[in-house]
């Protein structure tokens, strides 16, 4: 349980900033697709080696990178209108993953892989979470400007030779890694929640990218704490508990956030002059 908490806090530092960039690029759905896309890889690792972190992680990374490349290709082939194709892709990946897990194990394993288990976080999983967070934060600090430029004006990025596509792939690889790091504690279905919900909620707290990132991290930390406590005391699966708390954070942000929050809109009077 303590390991799960430390691990979730590590993921809370690294995943929400990635979520902010995904949201700004209108790629929220892509995160979902990647989250589901790693499941068949994890399931393959599980079939071959049981509940072993290295095997499942390796399978997950490979599957995730394949899906990331595939989603990128779909996006280019459909000229940015890829949402239908992406929905099809992630349904297939999810079904395939569930079938594979069911072939090799029972309902208990399936629930653990899909929804996470705080007690399933062993030292290897914790190491993976911490390493991923360190790497992600390092890369994001290093590549902040190209990432922002790639989001704001991809054509300009290419025109000034900023290696835009390359940064995008690095970025997607980080997303895959973070989803993978989250899955032991939160499950593949719910790991996306800790990435996207704080990011979406952060929109209501700040008008600039940096502020959104801070707000998203803060919300994710609170959700991790609250969710794991809830899961521990009420005996709930940890993934949905954390995501529910994050969802509560989103609703609160939507209602009371200063930027385009519901009450801020109702109360706002126009400025003088």
């Amino acid at each position: 349980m303590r390991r799960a908490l430390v691990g979730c806090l590590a993921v809370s530092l690294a995943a929400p900033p990635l979520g902010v960039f995904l949201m700004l690029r209108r790629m929220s759905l892509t995160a979902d697709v990647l989250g589901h896309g790693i499941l068949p890889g994890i399931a393959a690792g599980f079939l071959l080696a049981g509940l072993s972190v290295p095997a499942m992680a390796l399978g997950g990374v490979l599957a995730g990178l394949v899906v990331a490349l595939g989603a990128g290709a779909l996006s280019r082939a459909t000229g940015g209108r890829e949402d239908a194709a992406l929905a099809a892709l992630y349904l297939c990946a999810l079904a395939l993953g569930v079938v594979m897990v069911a072939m090799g194990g029972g309902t208990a394993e399936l629930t653990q892989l899909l929804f996470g288990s705080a007690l399933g976080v062993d030292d290897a999983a914790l190491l993976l979470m911490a390493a991923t967070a360190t790497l992600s934060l390092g890369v994001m600090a290093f590549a902040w400007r190209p990432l922002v430029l790639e989001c704001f004006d991809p054509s300009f990025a290419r025109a000034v030779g900023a290696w835009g596509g390359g940064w995008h792939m690095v970025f997607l690889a980080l997303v895959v890694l973070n989803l993978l790091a989250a899955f032991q504690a939160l499950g593949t279905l719910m790991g996306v929640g800790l990435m996207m919900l704080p990011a979406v909620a952060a929109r209501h707290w700040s008008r600039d990218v940096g502020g959104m990132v801070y707000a998203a991290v803060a919300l994710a930390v609170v959700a991790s704490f609250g969710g794991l406590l809830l899961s521990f005391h009420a005996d709930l699966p940890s993934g949905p508990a954390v995501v529910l708390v994050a969802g509560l954070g989103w609703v609160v942000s939507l209602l009371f956030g200063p930027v385009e929050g519901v009450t801020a809109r109702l109360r706002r009077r126009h400025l003088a002059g």
Partner: protein
Amino acid sequence: MTRPAAPVLLENLTVCHERRPAVHHLSGAFAPGSLTAIVGPNGAGKTTLLRAIAGLHKPQEGRIRTADRVALLPQASMLDRGFPISCLDAVMLGLWRQSGPFRAVAPAGRAQAEAALEAVGLRGFQKRPVGSLSAGQFQRVLFARLLVQDAPVILLDEPFNALDARTAAEMLALVKAWHGEGRTVAAVLHDLDLVERDFPQTLLLARDPIGWGPTAEVLTAANRLRARRMAEGWAEDAADCDMDQAA
């Protein structure tokens, strides 16, 4: 500032969208220091031509030769205007050549960006998020970024669209100033009165080039009619171009 060293040469240039040519066997040159309007009906390949010169589309055939750095003002509709970035940061992205992806922006660069904001009439807007700007103000930010880029060759894609008269006039003054400094400038435009008044050179494009030269010689009634005819007559089921096989 660096003056253009050489013309922008187009040699038998064809650029395609899904095998359909948007620019078709275009040859010619933008002379160093020239100010050219690119006009033609919708879908004539004007945007594609600019983007190809800026290196964003690969030519299917032929080639583009430029010895100089090219800066492009994109159509405003191609950008996410709600993006959470401040005006100053957006302008400072134009310093990419100096700052690169990682280095900090030097104080001189920051001063340059602030001066550019002031030059486009956005003094005091440094910290404003671009999402809070009107369409005209956003276009001013993009012009400020061009100022900071300081490129010898400047390409403008519908720079005055959706601008009120005053903003358009002020941005036109910037364009003329660039011309006066000896930069090569080409702009996609729809307002033919403006072209006849302020742009010495014109390229009339209807996928195939109709005319390229001094504006008065290109914008004849006969040429305009021809461009319109070609725009109306584009076949949906065109066969492979026989010029391609000959080439």
